[in-house]
């Protein structure tokens, strides 16, 4: 089952748990399952149905480019990290 590593400031939704195994074949499915298990965390990750612009998704150590559409493997490790660049303007 894929493992999602919860960002430090979102661990308040998971009771401090850092690594969570979540069923799913796409990022969308993982985020939906996360939201069901830890209400509110999905809203931190999503905006208008896709991953927030300020967040990048790493799948198995590589920055993915497809937002919620990206596929994840059975044993994938997924990280949500701040998007690089920083500028909001």
């Amino acid at each position, binding site marked *: 089952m894929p493992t999602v590593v919860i960002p430090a400031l979102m661990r308040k939704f998971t009771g401090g748990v850092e690594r969570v195994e979540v069923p799913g074949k796409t990022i969308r499915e993982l985020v939906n399952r996360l939201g069901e298990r830890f209400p509110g965390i999905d809203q931190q990750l999503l905006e208008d149905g896709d991953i927030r*612009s*300020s967040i990048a998704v790493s799948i198995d150590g590589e920055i993915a480019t497809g937002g919620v559409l990206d596929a994840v493997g059975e044993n994938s490790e997924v990280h949500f990290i701040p998007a690089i*660049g*920083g500028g909001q303007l």
Partner: protein
Amino acid sequence: MAASTTTGNFKVIGTRPIRHDGVDKVTGRAKFGADYAFPGMLHGKVLRSPHAHAIIKSINVDKALKLPGVQAIVTSKDLPPAENKLEQAGEMTINPMYLSMNILARDKVLYDGHAIAAVAATSPHIAEEALRLSEVEYEVLPPVMAVDAATRPGAPILLNDLRNPEEGDKPTNVAQHYQFKRGDVAAGFKAADYVIEREFNTAMVHQGYIEPHNAVGIYNPDGQATIYCSTQGPVIVRSLSAQVLGMPVGKIKVVPAEIGGGFGGKTTIYLEPLSLLLSKKTGAPVKLTMSRAEVLRASGPTPGAKIKVKMGATRDGKLVAAEIWMAYQAGAFPGSPVGAGAMCIIAPYTVENFVIDAYDVVVNRPKTASYRAPGATQAAFASETVIDELAEKCGIDPIDFRIKNGVKEGSPQVVGPPFKRIGFIQTCEAIKNSDHYKSKLTGKFRGRGVASGFWFNAGMQSSAIVNIHADGTASVVTGSPDIGGTRASMAMITAEVLGLPVTDVRPIVTDTDSIGHTDVTGGSRVTFATGMAVYEAAKDAERQLIERAAKVWEKKPDEVEFRAGMLHAKGGGVPPLSIKQLAPRFARTGGPITGRASVSARGVGPGFATSVVDVEVDPDTGKVQVLRCTVAQDAGKAIHPSYVEGQMQGGTAQGIGWALNEEYFYDDKGTLRNSGFLDYRIPTCLDLPMIETIVVEEPNPGHPLGVRGVGEVSIVPPVAAVANAIYRAVGVRMTQTPMSPPKLLKAMLKHRSATQHSAAAD
């Protein structure tokens, strides 16, 4: 000098041809933004705030409009309302509302130089006179210039609508908090034999590009518009200008001019929407060009920072814990690179227990923009100084200390995922084995310092077209403005794939309508991502060449192969064909050959650099002279080694300027007092030795040619390396930038006094 670890039998890649745009550049024929002129063109100027923080009570331009020659004046009332939300825009996320407020102030001005209005007139002098006749009534407010002032209770608030989820519905100047943590920090420090804790402050500095911002806007009556400007990202100029003006993206074409430096600072917009707004009002082309003072006052420097670092190591030199607090000055609107800085600050090292808290803080300074590895240099100044001090405590050579703790393939990054193939240790070993590091530095007040740095590099989207011409030569078309010799690199990749001489490939940088979406020239991404698109486009052309040769020989494509620029029938039977020989037969075999590719590049390979610097300190004045400097950087495969070395030297030179001289100097009213290059002092050739380079080529497995990207990471180590060298020269640990003569002299006098005091007490 190249320490190559890349295998590959290249004919063109790795050579050093003369750049294709060289003749135009040295003869002055190359067209920069300010060179554009059109019949009936008007000249624009921008009215800017003299106050750092004030309410705009009224703007009266009646007198200015009556001045003969004045054609139009625009204020924020001419801009549509913009949404307060974050949107993706290439390398950046943008908030359209703040972007619009930066282009023209609404009810408040938020920094010295903030734009208030723009005028178009028949000459620049009349436009300037119109600014003088414009009347603005202000209610001046106290400015907040630093993170301490901005975050103390009761601090004046810049943006009344800014909220931070951690502070509830309370107005704040803290826009964002990032946190990264791993392991048990308390336990880590308990296991440490040595703990060093220091606080650092860095000054806001500018990229210092020589060419000021410029734009010519032409708004046609049919609603189609064109912007000519100096930019690192024509697509981003198009999308941001469309946001600010409420126009469809497809109505704006952006033509990138030659660029006289950017270093990240030309990845956003300032004048571009104003040129279109004024053109729409007047029906004429309108040109705006910033003065040097405007560039310094009102474009985007990189933030000043306050960073507290506490790190611990065991006696045998193993890093065991880090606790870091950092806050960056975002400028007047949210969005400093503090998140990136936090992810870089201990990135070269494996630290099992850490917590990093990072804060983005708005202050009454210009909105910061990208600058070469944004956020990483400030961070490395702090962490690499503390690392140096820990190495000394442990009695270990500073390079060996870095090698002992350095990340390698499989080591976890600060954000969690493991690194793939990287070359950090190789950069340390390259310095350790260099003539420079092995040489003996002698003499009083002389010292040697080392430091390392990390940068992510970037992928994003790029497009490329390769055209094969009737004589068998080729052109390669991309949308990536060339700020570091990338035209030559794109031509070399095309030439390598197609087996052509590099002089037979003409590289073109085109406008937003003539090529598919291409993100900014930034993030060290052009040779990586646009290079990937060029490689794929050339391979597409190669596939078509094979099909055509098969047609000519009445064979199937899989019976033909392309080797070393020649088409061969497998099994022989016909003489091979060169592209030159095949090209005249394109018309009878299916028409012109155009290879195309667009990529959303994955497989980014991060970069590391390690530098060694020798300095001599004048004990009477505190002036630091850099005697020798060597930088080793992992470039992945170096396509054009001279341009890789040039990037390494350029980044290092900027880092040394940041270390020794550069700072935004504001008075207590928040007015910038050094808005020219006489007082804002970037290094010249008289200040620097020849910077020696060692190109480490650890190939990036995520790129077909092994490319990583080279434009940024060499700026990260020099500030810390200079600080560490100063310590070894005079015994003073500098914790602020710039380490300019007055600041260093003060620190030296304090140190001398403390030393004498201590000796007397003994």
